[in-house]
């Protein structure tokens, strides 16, 4: 799977490329808006990572142009804090997700994977039943069972679990959970999310085996069956 990174900071772009390659992706680089636009038009990418502040032509106008041409490739927008720090503008220009620099690589990787997965699984009706291992959740009746046994969750715990189930097998970061479940686009410092997760873990893992909800150090959480 090939990604395109449009980022003028050459050192940062190379680090990003190396990190993504180590995670199994092929990566093309472009260092200004015009060049990025050309490469994106040439096609073949599953995802674009676009910095807003670019020489020659800014990232938002590049993305707008691509969207106007009907190109639907998912796009992750990067913005430097204190610059055009406006996620709404970014999303309006056709971005699918938005991150403020400086970011942790683990955060970027998690978002890239979530976007790729979202674009692969789109189409088909909305799921009302999600399943992972012996865990099942019904989004209509808002019920959860594990190994056939009913589990009572608070509404917020339910939303957390839903989010983790939609990304089963992938790391979901604290920031992503705050954005998706609480719709807060800032970092509330205290380990508020971790405490909610540990409550959820008590309920879905404590009396069952194997454990499904794991902490990924320095990164976030993932639902998986560990080998």
């Amino acid at each position, binding site marked *: 799977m090939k990604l395109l990174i449009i980022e003028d900071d050459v050192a940062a772009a190379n680090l990003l490329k190396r990190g993504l390659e180590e995670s199994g992706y092929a990566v093309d680089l472009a260092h200004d808006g015009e060049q990025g636009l050309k490469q994106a038009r040439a096609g073949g990418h599953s995802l674009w990572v676009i910095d807003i502040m670019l020489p020659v032509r800014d990232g938002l106008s590049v993305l707008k142009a691509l969207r106007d041409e009907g190109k639907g490739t998912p796009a992750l927008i990067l913005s430097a804090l204190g610059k055009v720090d406006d996620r709404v503008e970014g999303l309006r220009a056709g971005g699918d997700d938005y991150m403020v620099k400086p970011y942790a690589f683990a955060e970027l990787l998690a978002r890239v994977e979530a976007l790729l997965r979202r674009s692969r699984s789109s189409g088909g009706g909305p799921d009302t039943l999600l399943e992972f291992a012996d865990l099942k959740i019904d989004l209509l009746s808002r019920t959860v069972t594990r190994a056939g046994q009913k589990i009572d969750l608070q509404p917020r715990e339910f939303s957390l679990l839903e989010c983790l189930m939609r990304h089963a097998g992938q790391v979901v970061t604290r920031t992503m959970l705050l954005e998706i479940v609480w719709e807060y686009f800032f970092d509330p*410092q205290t380990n508020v999310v971790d405490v909610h997760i540990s409550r959820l873990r008590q309920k879905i893992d404590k009396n069952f085996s194997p454990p499904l909800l794991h902490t990924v150090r320095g990164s976030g959480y993932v639902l998986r069956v560990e080998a």
Partner: protein
Amino acid sequence: MPGIWIMAALLLGVAGAAIGFWLARRRQRSLESLRSRLVAVTQSSRQTGDNIAHDLRTPLTRLHADVETTLRNEDSEAHRATLERVLTEIQGMQSIISALLTLGQAEAGGMPVKKMAVNLSLLLEEILELYGPSAEERQLRLQGRIALQIMVEADRQLLARIFSNLLDNALKYVPADGLVVLSATAKGGEVVVTVEDDGPGIPAEMRDRIFERFTRLDPSRTPSGGAGLGLSLVKAFAKLLQGDVRAEASRLGGAAFIVTLPAAAAGVPRPVP
């Protein structure tokens, strides 16, 4: 404000240099010279005084000593442990820079404020719910006394940041078994939200200064400790929303932080999106 920008740029450079330097196992001099440049720049910046220099120099000094010691050691386990500490320090410095940039932007009026009708009562209940489990884990009682249907014309993210900073403080500074109360009322054209506790409180002579950058009652600094920017952000955000915040003594025995905001213009309250 340019002082802050220069400093932020420098600091990012230093943080990057610290890692590069560590990996390359040389260029000890460049970190040293960046460090003295940083100290020079921050010390010459009058508006924020020595505090910033101190706050940024402390982690840099720690980084410097840590990296230097580790370089003399061949053990790769020790290298790894040092890199992890370096990363933590860098994250701490990054959050200081982010907060300073945000503050600069907010105070200069350059911050986008998306005002819309917000049901403040609901938002506060949500924040209580977000912080509830953390409070319980710290053996604090967190209570809400929130009047229904308080509407404000404001930016939801800024509001949430204001109250999450205040609750974050209460959770950090109120000792176990304490009580934290979040209350909200609307009187006339004004909405008053109070976050108060039965903790150690703020001495009367500090109640204004506490909102200045880098002011902390306990000046000792640890890698995990706060920077003293939270309340400055709260003040800047409250002002952006045409409100204000002040500190008082609480009837509960500790600190009371009182946020005032203009109530939404009278009319049919619109539902929150």
